[in-house]
């Protein structure tokens, strides 16, 4: 990764790589060429802090990540096992001081990830040359810093980071914005239903009906004059097109937006991706690669990865169990109408049609699903009970977190809610010329959970610094509609119907 150091893997590891790669291909995994590099813990912490890339633009938040990772390692609290980036060829990193059995495990796990990157639909539009692209971004930002200075660039990056989640998580798959149509200001012509005979006209198209039609057309035309025409989820794109940014500001915002889109699918597939990689490292290790002398260490580390704690979902654990569950269901034919309708508990428990479709099914699923659809379709009541899933919440009175419920529907709903839009509130630009004063109005699509108000206000301030004119957002707080506005100096709240 860096120029002065030979990070080629030594022959011993290269033999191991060949071996593991052979097993992985034997199982049908289909991945890009994968390049492993061996790094010391300091370097691996750095690369991890940079999000897996050896070269990023200068910013303090990478230093913060680095500090947390290094401290965790030095104090013996945490350790990076595996890191891989979605690129063609893919790059993955091995920790120098790891035992061979760990390196085997990591390689097996990595091939799982790369297979997923290559084949899952969510990654179809990601840049597979991101390694180069990130380095280009770094160079471009450095050049800008040379020109305008570190302080202003850093401040602008801080602001952009504050808005970074305001992208359209799914827009890469289709065109949301309608093509601009040139519609001239022709007088509105109301055509009623066709009446063959003149004297029928008054009956088929009474005056009230025609007026109604005229109003509809007028509204439609008014809507087209709105700006943006329809609410726009990609707030960053909107800013790029319409905010009065300096050239260099636009350049930085645009490359940060690009990076946000590159990382987005990884956030949307955390559970299925980690689960898939774990499923395969487990399979490859226990069925092929492990020597007897390595079993204990493998078991130790595998169980460390799968550990759960009550207040959080471990994506590795939930994922691997769900993949195994799917494989088992399709192997035994536990799906379809006949199985669903069967309410004889004993018959269900013994259900086995010996279909052996499991392997085929999971490869199909890994192509077409992300976390939301994966959970929605395959998380069954049996599975939730088996995995002891529950919903928790905060008890204000006792000032503590408590288990609330184990009811399947509630667990599933909560889990899906957590995953939808990557756990982020859905926010869109609704008016770029609010109250005809050039102000920017956003709307929060409230789905039962309030925004964190102090953060919302500070974020508005960052938005205002880019838009220059006052900005506002409508949302609901404690069940009431609120419009929060920031004019560059003062925050103001106003009650609204929303």
């Amino acid at each position, binding site marked *: 990764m*860096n120029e*002065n150091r030979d990070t080629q893997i030594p022959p011993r590891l290269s033999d191991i790589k060949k071996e593991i790669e052979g097993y992985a291909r034997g199982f049908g995994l289909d991945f890009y060429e994968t390049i492993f590099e061996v790094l010391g813990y300091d*370097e691996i912490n*750095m690369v991890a*802090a940079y*999000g*897996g890339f050896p070269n990023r633009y*200068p910013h*303090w938040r990478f*230093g*913060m990540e*680095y*500090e*947390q*990772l290094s401290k965790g390692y030095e*104090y013996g*609290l*945490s*350790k*990076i*096992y595996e*890191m891989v*980036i979605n690129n063609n060829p893919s790059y993955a990193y091995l920790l120098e001081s790891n035992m061979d059995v760990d390196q085997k495990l990591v390689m097996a796990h990595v091939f799982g990830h790369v297979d997923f990157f290559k084949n899952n639909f969510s990654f179809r539009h990601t840049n597979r040359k991101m390694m180069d692209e990130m380095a280009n971004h770094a160079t471009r930002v450095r050049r800008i810093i040379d020109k305008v200075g570190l302080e202003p660039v850093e401040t602008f990056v801080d602001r952009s980071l504050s*808005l*970074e*989640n305001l992208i359209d998580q799914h827009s890469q798959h289709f065109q949301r914005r309608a093509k601009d149509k040139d519609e001239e200001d022709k007088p509105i012509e109301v055509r009623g239903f066709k009446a063959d005979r003149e004297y029928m006209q008054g009956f088929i198209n009474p005056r009230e009906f025609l007026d109604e039609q005229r109003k509809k057309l007028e509204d439609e035309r008014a809507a087209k004059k709105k700006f943006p025409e329809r609410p726009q989820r990609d707030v960053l794109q909107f800013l790029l097109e319409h905010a009065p940014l300096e050239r260099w500001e636009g350049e930085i915002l645009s490359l940060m937006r690009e990076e*946000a889109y590159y990382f987005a699918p*990884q956030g949307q*597939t955390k559970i299925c991706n*980690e689960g898939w990689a774990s499923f395969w490292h487990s399979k490859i290790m226990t069925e092929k690669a492990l020597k*007897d*002398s390595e*079993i204990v*260490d493998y078991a130790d580390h595998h169980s*460390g*990865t799968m*550990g759960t*704690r*009550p207040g*959080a*979902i471990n994506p590795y654990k*939930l994922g691997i169990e769900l993949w195994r569950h799917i494989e088992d269901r399709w192997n035994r034919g536990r799906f379809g109408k006949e199985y669903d309708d069967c309410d004889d508990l004993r018959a269900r428990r013994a259900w086995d049609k010996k279909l052996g479709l499991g392997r085929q099914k999971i490869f199909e699923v890994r192509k077409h699903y992300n976390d939301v659809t994966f959970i929605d379709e395959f998380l069954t009541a049996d599975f939730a009970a088996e995995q002891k*899933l*529950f919903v*928790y919440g*905060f008890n204000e009175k006792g000032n503590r977190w*408590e*288990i*609330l*419920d184990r009811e399947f529907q509630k667990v599933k709903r909560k889990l899906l809610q*957590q995953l939808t839009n990557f756990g*982020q*509130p859905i926010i869109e630009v609704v008016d770029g010329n609010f109250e005809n004063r050039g102000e920017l109005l956003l709307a*929060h699509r409230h789905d039962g*959970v*309030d925004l*964190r108000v*102090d*953060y919302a206000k500070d974020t508005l301030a960052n938005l205002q610094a880019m838009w220059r004119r006052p900005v506002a*957002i409508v949302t609901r707080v404690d069940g009431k509609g609120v419009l929060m506005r920031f004019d560059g100096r003062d925050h103001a709240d106003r009650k609204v119907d929303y």
Partner: protein
Amino acid sequence: MPLKIKQDHSRFREIIRGRIKNNLRKYIQKGEMIGKKGKDLITIPVPSIDIPHFRYGHKDQGGVGQGDGEPGTVLAPGAVEGDGHGKAGQGEGQHALEVDLSLDELAEILGEELALPRIQNKGKKNLVTPKVKYSGVHTTGPESLRHFKRTYKQALKRSIASGTYNPALPIIVPTREDKRYRSWRVQEMPQSNAVVIYMMDVSGSMGDEQKEIVRIESFWIDTWLRANYKGLETRYIIHDAVAREVDRETFFHTRESGGTMISSAYKLCKEMMDADYDTGSWNIYPFHFSDGDNWSADDTRTCVNLLKSEILTKVNQFAYGQVESPYGSGQFIKDLREAFDSVENVALSEISNKDAIYNSIKEFLGKGS
């Protein structure tokens, strides 16, 4: 070759220290890393900056967890992730390891995080005694120091590898080569003792939250001083209008309703020092916590005089922590500040909430006296 990221890192440290970019200061958060001491989870202060986003209020949100327990079961503090959103997807696997930290390690981490100076010894200056610290694992050693877990793992590995492991009868017999022993290192420690005298106002205005803050502070103070001295004694005094000595348990759980005369506690502290702690061989640390209310300006004057004439000459450092409460006037710290503005061995700190604890520990212990 120095790592590229060091630049970003030093930039981050400067923000944390408040040298640059003060607009980010309010987003600095503490207590990110979690270690374990016995049964308790302990958060280790690792600063981070949380850039504001439009996002959900976490406590409204709740979430899905995994494990045993009926509805109503309380989740342990630290079990719930700090914030509701994951880090923007990075293809990395980082795992928290559950480790038991010894008090020594905790003190070391604390000292490093807060950049605390080692304490200048005040008592018998040049006497040191060796102190044994267990720091590693060796393949030889006395049986009394055998590391059971490591030995077992080693034996299990060997028996699986050699094919003698029988799952039906999983008996593992360690051989000589399997055995692992704790090994130690000898450190020089000053041969001197220290006493901490905790005083706390227990009048009605000090609530549970205020006491919780004092409890956490005292834990860290004990931890740090214990690492710096060979022996550490702690004494506890509670007061409202009168003062009395109590045990630790009572100290944190008493609530009285009377008025507040701080001088009563200082008097008792002085008597205690005179009776039990000879200044030649003891390092003395009185810590006083209250919400800043005192009965009268007269009593405050008495306090100041007591400190000046009797206490400050004998102690390494006198510390006063003022815990913010909705009822207190907060006057007392102002009076002390006025009286002891440039006095070396007086440390004053205002603690507005739990997040301010680490800062105030730094104010208390940062002088190294």
